[in-house]
């Protein structure tokens, strides 16, 4: 192969009608996959509809109107996988589809799995099951119900739910408050007709990124590009930038209760750092020192020293410049936990950081970036993120950028991190009465 061993690259191989095609070079995997991302602005009116589209498409296509036949076909293709879903990156919503299969040299016959799987993917994407001027009614009803059930079931995972609520409160009146699959209220407004109209908009006008990874012939890739290029597309939708900067006037406090045993504390912060800012890499190092791993101040102080929690960590939302600290604690320890957490944030601001902490964090980040190259999904996610923000760093230069981060850089970003919202999901006392604790 014509690329240096050990280097993972994404090479743009074609661009047409608002579709960018990338070939990921890495020859160690036993599987081949294609990832597609249609990108939209994250908007209340469209988020739930966008989320419903992949759910509808996955249930069959003109050639395989019975989903059991489609599933059987995927089994026969050695457990090939075709899937889809939505995710948000900053104030963009991505409607993703992917197909993957094992490489032909691990099959017993003379199958050309890539061509067969691509054909299935194209069928699902381009020929959904319709009735009149909308999606097939019975199919729509089922997936619409499932979407609403899914949105309601967000309360089931208390850790994720508290994070979602913290962000909703923190970003109220900003598009980022919209959850990945939108809200129940907006989902209620969908019908087979308006969802089909949205699907057509997606197929014909959303910017589209296509990534091809793993062993596959050039002629098969060309055929895939031709198939995509044959889709009539125009008026490609312009994407709005994500709003990152915000000055916090007053810290917002929100307490909610539920019938649970353990309280979930979330502290949301604004970092005011864009992914394209020179402060971005220092910010990632900052987050790693504060709460990124087992070496972090939060893990060491909240868990190891005070024994208050099993988990205490901080996560970054790269595109929106947010940081959220999360911990699961006894309700009665809330003030103590909050105090210890804020003390760590303050210590960062004052520069109470050792060179060792910086070095450990940079090492951990380097390991993380290098390891991403051992997963096809992670490679695609890395490049998708870069392409979405028009950044050109690859794995190697990203690592170099981390290595250049100094103590001054970290302390500088620490000065601009502002606490915005404290959200606490607390036990309503019922569990304690039942004697479950």
């Amino acid at each position, binding site marked *: 192969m014509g690329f240096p061993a050990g280097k993972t690259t994404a090479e743009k191989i074609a661009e047409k009608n608002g579709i960018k095609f990338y070939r990921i070079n890495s020859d160690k995997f*036993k599987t081949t996959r294609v990832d597609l991302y249609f990108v939209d602005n994250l908007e209340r009116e469209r988020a739930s509809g966008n989320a419903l589209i992949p759910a509808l498409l996955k249930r069959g296509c003109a050639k395989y109107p019975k989903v*059991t036949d489609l599933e059987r076909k995927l089994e026969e293709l050695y457990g090939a996988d075709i899937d889809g879903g939505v995710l948000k990156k900053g104030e963009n919503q991505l409607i993703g589809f992917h197909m993957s299969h094992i490489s032909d040299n691990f099959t017993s016959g003379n199958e050309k799995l890539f061509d067969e799987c691509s054909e299935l993917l194209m069928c699902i994407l381009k020929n959904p099951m319709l009735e009149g001027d909308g999606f097939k009614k019975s199919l729509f009803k*089922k997936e619409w119900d499932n979407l609403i059930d899914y949105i309601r079931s967000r309360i089931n995972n208390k850790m994720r739910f508290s994070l979602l609520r913290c962000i909703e409160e923190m970003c109220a009146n900003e598009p980022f408050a919209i959850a990945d699959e939108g809200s129940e209220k907006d989902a209620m407004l969908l019908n087979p007709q308006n969802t089909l109209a949205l699907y057509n908009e997606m197929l014909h006008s959303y910017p589209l990124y296509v990534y091809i990874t793993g062993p596959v012939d050039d002629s098969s890739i060309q055929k895939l590009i031709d198939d995509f290029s044959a889709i009539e597309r125009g008026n490609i939708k312009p994407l709005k930038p994500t709003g990152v900067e915000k000055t916090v006037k007053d810290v917002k406090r929100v307490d909610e209760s539920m019938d649970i*045993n353990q309280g979930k504390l979330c502290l949301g912060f604004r970092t005011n750092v864009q992914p394209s800012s020179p402060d971005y890499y220092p910010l990632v190092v900052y987050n790693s020192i504060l709460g990124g791993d087992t070496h972090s101040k939060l893990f060491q102080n909240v868990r190891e020293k005070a024994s208050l929690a099993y988990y205490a960590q901080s996560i970054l939302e790269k595109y929106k410049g947010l940081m959220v600290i999360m911990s699961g604690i006894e309700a009665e320890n809330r003030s103590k936990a909050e105090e210890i957490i804020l003390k760590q944030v303050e210590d960062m601001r004052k520069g109470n950081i050792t060179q060792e902490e910086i070095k450990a964090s940079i090492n*951990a980040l380097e390991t993380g970036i290098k390891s991403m190259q051992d997963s096809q999904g992670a490679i695609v996610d890395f490049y998708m993120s870069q392409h979405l923000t028009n950044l050109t760093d690859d794995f190697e230069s990203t690592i170099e950028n981390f290595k250049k981060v100094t103590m001054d850089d970290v302390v500088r970003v620490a000065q601009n991190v502002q606490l915005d919202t404290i959200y606490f999901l607390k036990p309503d006392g019922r569990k304690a009465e039942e004697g479950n*604790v």
Partner: protein
Amino acid sequence: MSYRTIKYEDLGETLYEYDHKSGLKVFFVRKPGYFKKTAMFGTNYGSIDNIFKVPGSDKVIEVPDGIAHFLEHKLFEQEDGNMLDKFSRLGASPNAFTSFNQTVYYFSCTDLFEENFKMLLDYVQKPWLTDENVEKEKGIIGQEIMMYQDNADWRVFFNLLDCLYVNHPIKLEIAGSIESISKITKELLYDCYNTFYSPTNMAVTVAGDLEPDEVFAIVDNMIQFKDRGTVEKKYPQEPEELNQEYKEQKLAVSMPLFFMGIKDNVRVSGPELLKRRIALSIIMNDIMGRSSGLYDKLYSDGLINDTFRFEVSLDQAYGYVAWGGQSSDPKKTSEIISAALKEAVEKGINSDSMTSIKKSHRGMFIRGLNSVDNITHELMESFFNGACYFDTGRIYEELDIDYVNKVLNEVFKNKAALSVVKPQ
């Protein structure tokens, strides 16, 4: 340095096996082009091993629930500091887990493999327990237990195990309860350590872009501990019947969750265990996989959704199949599934359907070889059950319809239990 080299041409993998003089087995898989290197050091000792004979005495003891998991937490603490911290200083990502049947310590790194690997091999051989550090851990693990009490997926699963098993300790929470861990002492932890952390009861697995000589030489230099004799685990007699047919709990969820299961009362080990496990997965896939008529009917009728899944769990000491997810009507769903199971036993598995499911499962096995973490994990687990993970490929070739139908008859005639979590 002498070790065995086993080539698996059809998988594109080579396995290197080394027998250390202490009796410790070491497995290595070379993954050219991979950045990540993962090493695991594990013991064939999990949450179910609560009753055992202490080596060097005739004493059989019963220890508090959750002690294997507690010991896992404590091993990270060493006299000169916390191991998690030391690994992270070298840029490695360390962790450990305790399951029903094993406790495994591991790290992954991209650089400084030798330093990290030495640390792993060293600390697992050196517990450092004090009354004070044992007490401190109770607060942390207490919060871990509370977190799981609020996890509906976890609760519906353990309530099912409680339905399936009358006596077997698999029904107990892996981390124990706040009450049971309160009884854990330094002395009891040492009893467990001295019994199960012995070279012949342990294994090391490594995968990454390394050389076998390099890996095995490090093991040679670092392994100091001596064998402490054969481990004798005692499990209570488990009747074939269910403990109870139904269990229900109310939690803060949006719609009901259900989980059903059937106990497999036939105990096997070695390659036979892998074969039986694969047969059970094929049967489950045929009856309720996404290509099945049953799945389609339940989905179309709004009785299940995308969260529906099934699993096969088979170990030398226990075995069950289980399935479930969210459902608007768990009772009705369970009745339809039970009827379909009865019909499947009567009709047997269709050979065409088996051929395509087999292809699909083999494909998923190949996919798993993309991940160094998966390889190290599966090698460890299969070794403790007397088998080799890479033989999975060969077993797919050998598996025939008669065997699958025999397993179908042995397992699916048994009664299924139902666990439900309902919204308040």
